[in-house]
């Protein structure tokens, strides 16, 4: 049983890392702009496809393909914010409708461009195996965990110690006061979308080679990330991190005692319980009106 728990801890941490990347992007957008971007899953998927494109057609190098994919997603983020979300800024419902519309447009666009069949991308990190006793993991498992820990650290440092990061936090906390001290909110919103999309792209670029790259590959991570930010506390970055890792580990370990097809049930049951008992989440701030 100890072997099984260890195996599932590694698998859960790896998947949790992916949820963290997604959740951080969503929580940044929600925290700064108060928009729930449901299209985050398809941006994650686009990251997978772009990495495949750059890897096989341009660079031949996986790390370089990831960097190009992240940069492209960052650019896509700026465009999406400027063209779609900025004009709809004061209309939350329309923003949600627009993000749902984006899912259909991007998913079907990808099917038109790449076809409906899943793509494979066997990088050396996926082919290399790491033996731990009788267990064996792909190197990519550990690459994902290491890259996500680095990305989260870099984001923390950026938000805490740079002027732009401080400006982002200021805009998130009090947009009017931020304007008074000379912060241009449009720049901050564009920057927020850029970082969030880049994180989604990184997630797709990391997970795609391990599994498959296909049009729906972002659907489940998006739902889990959404659960992570609700459980962690809407708008809370530590909450997104704890929520993401927590969901990954809990869903993996739960399959040792309950049937695997009930794995999602556990996650969403926790989500509903949290909404009922502590709607402001683990790290969120209780606001007047919430019970």
């Amino acid at each position, binding site marked *: *049983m100890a*072997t*099984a728990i260890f*195996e*599932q801890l590694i*698998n859960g941490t790896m*998947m949790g890392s992916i949820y963290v990347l997604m959740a951080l992007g969503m929580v940044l957008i929600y925290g700064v702009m108060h928009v729930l971007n449901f299209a985050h899953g398809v941006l994650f998927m686009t990251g997978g496809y772009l990495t495949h494109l750059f890897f096989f057609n341009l660079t031949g190098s996986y790390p370089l393909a990831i960097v190009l994919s992240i940069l492209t997603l960052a650019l896509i983020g700026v465009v999406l914010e400027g063209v779609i979300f900025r004009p709809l800024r004061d209309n939350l419902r329309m923003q949600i409708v627009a993000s749902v519309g984006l899912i259909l447009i991007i998913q*079907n666009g990808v*099917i038109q461009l790449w076809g*409906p*069949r*899943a793509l*494979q991308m066997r990088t050396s990190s996926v082919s290399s*195996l790491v*033996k731990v006793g*009788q*267990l*064996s*993991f*792909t190197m990519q498992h550990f690459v994902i965990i290491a890259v996500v820990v680095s990305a989260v650290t870099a984001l923390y440092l950026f938000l805490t110690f740079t002027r732009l990061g401080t400006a982002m936090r200021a805009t998130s906390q009090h947009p009017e006061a931020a304007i008074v001290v000379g912060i241009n909110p449009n720049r901050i919103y564009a920057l927020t979308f850029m970082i969030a999309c880049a994180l989604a792209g990184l997630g797709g670029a990391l997970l795609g080679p391990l*599994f*498959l790259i*296909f049009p*729906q*590959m972002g*659907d*489940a991570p998006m739902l889990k990330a959404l659960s992570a930010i609700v459980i962690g506390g809407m708008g809370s970055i530590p909450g997104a991190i704890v929520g993401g890792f927590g969901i990954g580990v809990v869903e*993996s370990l739960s*399959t*040792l005692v309950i*049937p*695997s*097809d009930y*794995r*999602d049930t556990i996650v969403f049951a926790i989500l509903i319980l949290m909404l009922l008992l502590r709607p402001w989440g683990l790290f969120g701030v209780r606001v007047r009106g919430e019970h």
Partner: protein
Amino acid sequence: MRKLVLSAALATALFTQTAHAQEVVTVGIVTAQTGPLAAAGKFQMNGFNLAVEQINKTGFDVAGKNYKLALKVYDTHCSTSEGASAMQRLISVDQVSVVLGELCSPVVSAEAPLAQDEKVPLVITVPTAVNLTEQNNPYLFRINAHNGQLTKALVDYILSADAQPLAFIAWNNDAGRGGVNGVKALLPKDYKLGYVGYFNVGEVDFSSHITNIRNSGAKSVMLLMDEEPGALAIRQIRDAGLKVQFIGTLAMGSDRFLKTLSAAYLDGMVQYSAFPPNAPIERIKNFNEAYRAKFNEESHGFAAQSYDAVFAVVEAMKKAGKVKGGAAIRDGLSAVSFDGVIGKISFDNKGQASPPVYITEWCHDGTRKVIFPKEMSAACGGG
């Protein structure tokens, strides 16, 4: 004046002849062209399109008239609501007299009652849930073998092999659960089973199943799923260091499947097959060549089954003596009997055909051999 009259008469005659030659019968198609099962839907459409292209070269004669076929295709996304809506639209708006296709067993459950209510036959070509043709619906026909027929052949193999304890990973739907139950029902009561796990369409992480398979001490794992999850499951199981015997479905016995993995991953794996594309059987060879010429890839069981369904409908129309009228075509379908690509095509009183089922095994060099039925067995390269 006489010349003018003659010219007009000739022109009228020619026009009438042309109009007759171009009479078109529209057949409805319901399938998934987008969504998680779009890849499987493509094989289905390839089979339909190849059959229509071949039939339309000369057309087909019914009651002295020559007809061509056209397809009206709706994408059901493998969704029950979309399937029911597409079926209703084909019947009431497009007014087709017969509908073919569908990939997903649950969607058939939504479409079949409409077929019965509106008296428009539905001929399914891929779904394998056993219960579909057990509903006393005289307007539902299935050309492919169902899970019970497929698994019977596989269970015969399992019983002859050293496969205990046997574990399962299966789709969490009618096809997957029906498949698991079908195998269990055919195994002796004292047969040792290992872990049984289900996954939802679109899931790609099999790590929890792998841990449970390892814990259960299974010697063999049956994978009741399609190509893409199948390739993922096999790769993840082997990468996790599990040395189990793989037992797969017809989706896993193709060159396309080999390309998603490698010969080393597949060596020794067995799977049932409704259609071994390289079998040294004339009807299969001919179809495979025509398919490869049109689509530049090895043919697929879904395509072969769908191809035969179009010919079954044409035969039914010939038997009915008319190309319109769902009830007449239904009666025609009940009476068809011909040699298709997948084998003898005729339907029993439940609307179920009984094509042969093969067991193929992957060889170390990436080819396949037929190991069952014995009389059709073929060496590596013939599966």
